[in-house]
C-alpha cells in the first residue's frame, strides 16, 4: 500500500440552491478540484461519489455514472462508484477512493460528495433522513433522527450534568466560525439566548441545535504522494482513513452516551498514523446536533467522557484554543448536504493545513482530523491529514 495525498479540492456554496440541479453542483465541485490539482481529465482514473438518498430525494439512483456523464467523461468509460452510509457517505467515499489509490490499481481518482435536499418539502426530507436510523425499531415508533439524538442528550445530561446552555454553545461557536466562511449556508452569528430560546424540535434539542437541510457538493482529487509535487506545492498526506461501525439502533448500544464506532475509528486512526489526539490542531467533527459535537470530542479522545460540556464552554476549542473545532462552521452553520459533508470536512482541513484558511486560518496547523457519522452512530469515519514538507 502506497501513501496517498490530496492534490486538489473544490466545493460549492452550501445552502438552498434552488436554481442548481444535482448534476450541476456535482460537476462544479469536481471540476474545481481537478483544476486545483492541475489534473487533466485524461489522467483521471475514476470517481467515488458519496450520496445518501438521491433515490428518495430526487427519484434518481445510479448517480455515479450520471455525474461522470454530465462531466463529459462518459466516452472514457471510467469506473464510477456510489457509496452510501447515511450521513457518513462522503467520508466513506473518501475511504474507498483512498484504498483505490493506495492499492495501486488507480493513480488518480476524484472523490465527490453531493446531496440536494431541498427539492422535496422539509417534512419529506426529515422523514427521508430518519431512514438512516433503524426504521423498523425506532422510526415506526415515532422516533425521528433528532429525537434519537435527544434521547442521547437527555441521558448525557442525566449521567454527567451537561446543561442545556453547554449544548447551545456548540451552535454559537459554529455560527461564529461560519460568519467568515463565504461558502456557508448560515453566516449569521447567534447568541446563547437565541439558541436556548429557539423552538423545540425534540427536547432538549431546539431548532438551533440541529443542522439545516442543505444542498451542496464537495470534491477532492487523490493521487500517489510520491508524485504529488507535480500537481500541488502543498500535498496533504492521508495519514489514516478508518471506518468503524456499531449497532443500528440507539437502544442496542453498549452505552447510550458513547459512540463506540467513533472511539474505535479514532483509536485505529491514531495508531495507524502513529499520532495522538494531543497532536491535532484542527478538527472538523460531526456536529449534526449540538450533542453530537460534545460526544465527538469525548469519543475521539480530546476530552474525558462526560466533560465535553464544560470543556467546550471554556473556549478550549475556539479559534485561539489548543484545538480549533469546526473552523468551517461545521454541519450546523456551513450546512449539511448529507452526502457531501464528509468530503467538505476534508476540503476545509486541507485548506487549513495548506495555509489557505484566510481570516479563519488556524495558526500552525500541521495535523488535522475529520470525523463523520452515519445515522446515530452506526458508522463513524475518521481521517487524519498531515502537511508534508
Amino acid at each position, binding site marked *: 500500500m502506497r501513501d496517498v495525498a490530496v492534490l486538489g479540492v473544490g466545493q460549492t456554496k452550501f445552502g438552498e440552491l434552488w436554481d442548481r440541479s444535482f448534476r450541476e453542483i456535482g460537476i462544479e465541485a469536481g471540476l474545481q478540484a481537478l483544476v486545483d490539482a492541475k489534473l487533466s481529465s485524461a489522467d483521471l482514473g475514476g470517481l467515488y461519489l458519496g450520496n445518501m438518498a438521491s433515490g428518495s430525494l430526487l427519484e434518481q439512483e445510479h448517480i455515479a455514472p450520471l455525474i461522470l456523464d454530465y462531466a463529459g467523461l462518459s466516452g472514457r468509460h471510467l469506473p464510477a462508484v456510489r457509496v452510501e452510509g447515511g450521513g457518513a457517505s462522503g467520508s466513506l467515499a473518501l475511504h474507498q477512493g483512498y484504498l483505490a489509490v493506495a492499492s495501486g490499481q488507480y493513480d488518480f481518482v476524484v472523490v465527490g460528495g453531493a446531496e440536494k435536499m431541498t427539492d422535496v418539502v422539509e*417534512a419529506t426530507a*426529515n*422523514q427521508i433522513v*430518519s431512514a438512516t436510523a433503524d426504521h*423498523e*425499531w*425506532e*422510526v*415506526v*415508533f*415515532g*422516533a*425521528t433522527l*433528532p*429525537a*434519537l439524538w*435527544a*434521547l*442521547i*442528550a*437527555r*441521558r448525557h445530561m*442525566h449521567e454527567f450534568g451537561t446543561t442545556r446552555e453547554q449544548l447551545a454553545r456548540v451552535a454559537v461557536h459554529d455560527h461564529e466560525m461560519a460568519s467568515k466562511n463565504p461558502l456557508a449556508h448560515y453566516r449569521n452569528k447567534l447568541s446563547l439566548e437565541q439558541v436556548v430560546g429557539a*423552538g*423545540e*424540535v*425534540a*427536547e*432538549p*434539542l431546539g431548532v438551533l441545535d440541529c443542522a439545516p437541510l442543505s444542498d451542496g457538493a464537495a470534491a477532492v482529487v487523490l493521487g500517489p504522494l510520491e508524485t504529488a509535487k507535480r500537481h500541488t506545492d502543498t500535498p496533504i498526506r492521508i495519514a489514516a482513513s478508518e471506518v468503524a461501525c456499531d449497532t443500528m*439502533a*440507539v*437502544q*442496542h448500544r453498549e452505552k*447510550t452516551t458513547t459512540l463506540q464506532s467513533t472511539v474505535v475509528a479514532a483509536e485505529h486512526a491514531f495508531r495507524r498514523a502513529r499520532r495522538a489526539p494531543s497532536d491535532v490542531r484542527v478538527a472538523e467533527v460531526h456536529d449534526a446536533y449540538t450533542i453530537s459535537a460534545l460526544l465527538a470530542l469525548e469519543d475521539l479522545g480530546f476530552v474525558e467522557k462526560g466533560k465535553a460540556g464544560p470543556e467546550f464552554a471554556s473556549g478550549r476549542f475556539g479559534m485561539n484554543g489548543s484545538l480549533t473545532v469546526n473552523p468551517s462552521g461545521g454541519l450546523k452553520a456551513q450546512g449539511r448536504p448529507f452526502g457531501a459533508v464528509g468530503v467538505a470536512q476534508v476540503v476545509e482541513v486541507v485548506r487549513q493545513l495548506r495555509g489557505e484558511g484566510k481570516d479563519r486560518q488556524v495558526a500552525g496547523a500541521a495535523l488535522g482530523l475529520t470525523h463523520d457519522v452515519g445515522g446515530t452512530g452506526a458508522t463513524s469515519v475518521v481521517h487524519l491529514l498531515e502537511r508534508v514538507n
Partner: protein
Amino acid sequence: MSVARFWRETPRRYNLGGSKCTNCNTVYFPPRSVCPTCPSHRSTLEKMVPFQLSGDGTVYSFTVVHDAAEGFEMQVPYIVALVKTVEGPMLTGQVVDLAPADVKIGLRVRATFRKLREEGAAGVIHYGYKFAPAAEAGAGPEPRGRLAPVAGSPTGSSDRAPA
C-alpha cells in the same frame, strides 16, 4: 404502500416476542438468529429460542417530540423514550397516557397496544406497542393485561392453569 413488511413483524410489534440464547441466557428484542454476546456466534444458530417479554420496564431516557415523524402529527407533542425492560433488552417507544411534563427517567411503564400510523385514508392501519405508566407497587391493580405468549416460549409468568 408496504403490506408484507409490516405484517411480517406483527408478532414482535403486537406482543414483544423476542428471543433468548440458551447458551448464555441473554434475551434479545427484536429477536435474533445469532447471539452477538457468545464468543462463537456461529455455534448459537441452533440455540436461539422464542422468548416472551412481559412488557414491563422503566424509562431510561426520554424526549418530547415537537417536530413529528410522518403519521404522528396529531399527537404532537409526544413522548418518545428508551425503555429498559425487566428482562434486559432496551426498546424505543412512545409513552402515552401521561403529560409530557410528568415523564422522568426511572418511571415504571408497561406495554400497551395502540395505533402507530395509517397509510393514508385508504391504506393499511399499523398497530404496535407503546408504553403507559404502570401501577406503583402495592397501589392497586395493574391497569393493563398481559402480552400474548409467543408460540413455543415460556410465558415467564404463572397463569392459573385452565381446568
